[in-house]
């Protein structure tokens, strides 16, 4: 009897162990898989992704353990965007994170089910990414910088740092609706502030190079950038030309001054990445993008590249310079 009792205890114990172990195995969640879709990476994309990773880490995620972040950088190959987005859907990612207009549009076309979180420089409602900031209404939500609303602010900054500014050259891709919209906003803001805006629409890098070579700099001229993929892909050329021709440059986005713009002003993309990580976390915890309010960028940075200032022969008063969040020396 005692022997039988012992045998029963052994069988029960073994079963508990086996079921317990299998239950543990079943409960162990597989890592969340995030695909980052980028049309072409630049400083702003790098900052955003760094912020996203930092944010996820701060929320308790560990890369490689309970979350996987896979970068898909198409290095400027626009035609590859749609197939790439479709491929991501096929691979079964839990979430697609996008930076830039085209990448977000490609992801939206590829899926209506997989949640998409964007980091967008402008107004996502205008472009139809979300119905409203509070109620996105689909599988898309994200963080937006509303750069259009910052155009006027950037012009004010330029006038403050270079008081003699009278005319702004704006290069933009006339094939890009978003860029056209940005240009239109800039033109309005310029008129309001008494600045002449010179239209330099282009369609390709070659046209941009020709337009830059043709620039005849006069006193009070400056290059003003509005958010545009094509123009940003040729930023180094613009900076070099501006330096040689002695023209101030102001770019949208905080880190362009590090690359060679005289001034850059824009949302802090790293912070936007962190904000996006918060949205990702909420989606992983069960909230639906449809009802998850999109957010506005909370931090904007002003950077001044003093080397460029000196190289083009300008001087900026110390009290003005103090207004910069960061000075590149």
């Amino acid at each position, binding site marked *: 009897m005692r022997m039988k009792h012992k045998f029963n205890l052994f069988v029960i114990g073994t079963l508990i162990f086996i079921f317990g172990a299998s239950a543990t195995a079943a409960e162990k969640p597989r890592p969340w898989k995030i695909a980052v879709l980028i049309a072409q*990476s630049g400083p702003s994309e*790098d900052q955003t992704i*760094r912020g996203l*990773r930092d944010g996820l880490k701060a929320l308790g995620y560990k*890369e*490689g353990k309970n979350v996987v972040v896979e*970068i898909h*950088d198409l290095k400027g190959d626009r035609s590859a965007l749609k197939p790439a987005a479709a491929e991501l859907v096929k691979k079964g990612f839990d979430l697609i994170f996008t930076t830039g207009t085209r990448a977000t549009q490609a992801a939206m076309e590829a899926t209506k089910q997989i949640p998409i979180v964007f980091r967008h420089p402008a107004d996502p409602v205008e472009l139809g990414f979300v119905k409203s900031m509070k109620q996105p209404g689909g599988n898309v939500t994200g963080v937006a910088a509303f750069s259009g609303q910052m155009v006027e602010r950037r012009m004010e900054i330029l006038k403050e740092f270079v008081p003699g500014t009278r005319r702004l050259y704006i290069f933009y891709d006339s094939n890009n609706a978003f860029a056209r919209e940005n240009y239109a906003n800039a033109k309005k803001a310029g008129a309001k502030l008494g600045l002449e805006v010179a239209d330099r629409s282009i369609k390709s890098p070659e046209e941009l190079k020709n337009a830059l070579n043709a620039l005849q700099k006069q006193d009070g001229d400056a290059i003003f950038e509005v958010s545009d993929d094509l123009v940003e892909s040729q930023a180094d050329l613009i900076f*070099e030309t501006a*330096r040689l021709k002695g023209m101030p440059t102001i770019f949208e986005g905080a880190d362009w001054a*590090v690359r*060679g713009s005289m001034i850059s002003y824009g949302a802090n993309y790293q912070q936007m990445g962190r904000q996006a990580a918060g949205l990702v976390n909420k989606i992983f915890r069960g909230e639906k993008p449809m009802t998850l309010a999109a957010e506005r960028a909370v931090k904007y940075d002003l950077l001044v590249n*003093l*080397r*460029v200032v*000196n*190289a083009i022969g300008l001087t900026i008063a110390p009290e003005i310079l103090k207004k910069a969040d*960061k*000075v*590149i*020396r």
Partner: protein
Amino acid sequence: MAELADAIRKIPIFSSLSREDVAKVLGKLEEISFAAGATIFRQGDKGDAFYLIHSGTVEVVLESGGGRMETLAVLGPQDSFGEMALLSGEPRSATIVAVKDTTLWRLSREAWNDLIEKHPVWLLHFCALLSKRLAHAEHQYSTGRDAFNSLAEEFYGTRRAEEKRFFRHAALLNTLDPETMDFLLDAEGSKSLLARVEVTHSPLIRSVDGGKRELHGFFRDLLVEKLLAEEGQETKERLHARIAAQYEALGDWAQAVHHRMAAREWPAATALIAAHRDDLLEKSARFLKDTLDRIPPDFFYADLRLVHIKADAMARLGDFTGAVRTYKEVISQRGGTAGNEGVARYLSMANALVEKRDYPQALNSLRSALQLMDKESSTLGADATEIYWEQQRAKHVAAAAPEPAAAQGAPWRTFCSALLGYCRHASAGRWIGGILGLAVWAYFWFVQPEIGLEPAATKQFGLLCLTLIYWAFWVFPDYGVALIFVLGLILTGLGPPDEVLSGFASTTWFMTLGVLGLGAAITTSGLFYRASLQLVRFFPLTYYWQIIALGFMGTVITALIPQQTARTAISSQMLLNLSESLGYKTPSKASTGLFVATFLGLGQLGFLYLTGSTSNLLAWGLLPKDVRAQFTWGYWFLAALPPALIVIVIMLVAIIFLFRPESQSQVSYKMVENQLDILGPVSKNEWVTLAVLVFMVGGWLTFSYHRIDSAWISLIGICVLINTGVLGWGMVKKGIDWEMLIYLGATLSIPAVLTKAKIDQWLVSFIAPVIMPYVDHPAIAFVIIALFIYALKLIFTSGLAVITLTIVLIPLAAEMQISPWIIVMLILVATEVWFFPFQVDWHTLASATTDGKGFSYRMMSRINPIYALAYLIAIIAAIPYWRYLGLIG
């Protein structure tokens, strides 16, 4: 006087002189008197005069080993002595003691030489005299030998077999020490056997100093004959080798060398001589010279160390002409001065100095000529560290009893230096580096670990790791490793060729080419040497003024010649001569002080000028384009001047305190003037070089007016130098450091490649957390960076530390809101620090050029901690100035 003249004419050897010649001889004779019992000279002394006995009596005494004295002859009035040493150049063969009060006439070696030159017939008289003396000695020798041989044969024939064997082996020893005999001969009971034989057969064995015994020469000869007959030549050599090893264990280097030579083990004998050269020179220069004479010529001429040691030994014996001849023979054997202007200059300087009878400086010049021939490529800018390691290896070949290397002062320094240097220089270290590099590369390439980089970037990082490891372990030459890196990128498709090789078409590359060409022209045209001498002459020739002059000279010259090795190698010769002119021993505290002062400007302040070192040019090339445009030659100098001035002041004070001369200097401009005379008027090449120099520096300084890039100004300069023949084809090939240019071209694109792959940002993410907390306190951040570099330099060479840190730390500049140039300056300043000789190549080359006579590393290393401190102070003190320039926020 008439009495003296008559006395001289009565002497047979002077009888053929005319009255006029006798008068001349009279003018050169010095009368000296000795009391009875006084020693006139000793056996083994340098032969510096010939003597005639005017009155009195002297005895000629032969001192044999162990202090035994034997009177060979007694000489009286009109007899002469001392001619043997003057004729043969050998030391005195006997001791001369005055038996009664004696008056002598002394004829110096110089006067003797003059007379022999004018009256060659005298030599016949002396030959006859020597023949007579030899015949007398031979007669005595033959008679004695027959008697001894009978006795020895009888003794040997009556011994037991093991005793016979013992004596055969003992015959190989010069002296028999009962205390060490058993050890040396691997025998037992030697002590009691010797004691027994000494009592019964005293003529065969006799006591000498220190309780030792000596076999009579005839007896030894007999025993050696028996040894060869019964055991053969091979056994004899094997026995010598074993005895040599035992002597090495006992630390008796002279005996060890003697037996190695007898065993015909030339490499081992050479290694011992090189390792214990000072000891052997000090104890017996004669022995050393004789030993080196016995080394086969092929072996002797192939090893420069032996040549230097022989010349030193001859100089110590007073035979300067022999030392000069030795050097000239070697230089001639190695192809003379053909195609090497530097060697030709040193040689002509040596000839001029010989004519002026300034033998020590002539020997210095010859030594430098030979070193320059041997290490020609190193002299003009290559791998002097290899020379150091060759020297160190040589010093440690005598494995049985390694002495602390001269470079180190304490056991811990020796240990650290050996450990850290091992990785770089031992062939095992290279193998380890080679395998490690491949393993790390394979790990990143094939395993693709998740490290926060994209797959392609991870592969690039693997290739970068391989490159860094190969550089750090010196697996291949640094420029070869750089080529592996670029080829790796191109062949694997990780980087497009035009991008990866863009460094070869960059303005930095052409700027460096021009600057290297100018440096070669300045050094080979003699302009540098002349300028150095003029500067030295400009200041008073006292120790402290010369310290300031040399510091100043170095600082000026540094602006013009970017290769530290070339600067220091060429100036070290002048410094050695200067030190000797000031009457200081070499090496000594004072001579080391002079070198330290020179190295302050020539080596340690390279960061002061954009063209101050090849590392500067490399770091400048790695800066962002707009920063390069901002930091023209002139602006770099302005921005770097304050920290340099602070270092100069601190170090000059430290040198004056730390290297106070042991004795007062003997003020003389003779050396400087001699050398300026020899250089003659300014040559055409010097004028052309000077004009190009003025053009280039002027062009760099006036960039803001003409807007012509520094690179094109440099290229115009080198174009003129080539087309005017100042830089001949040989100099273009040898004088320009093409290895450096390959290295530069291959590495300049690294920052762009890393930025594209985002590896730079990834690296910054590791460093930023350490530095960024102190971003508002640049002094603390700078000190942290500097200390990190001090540590890194224990593993990396200066060039490698500069390139690695520049690439890694420049992205941090934007975060810290400072100019990237500040980061570069921190790196360049901190990489100047060295604690161990292997960390600096130009020092080692200077040491090799002066054959270790210029300075002592042990003494020089006292200054190192002060340098480390001075650099930190300078960096911190410069912060307000850099803030004023807008380089720091």
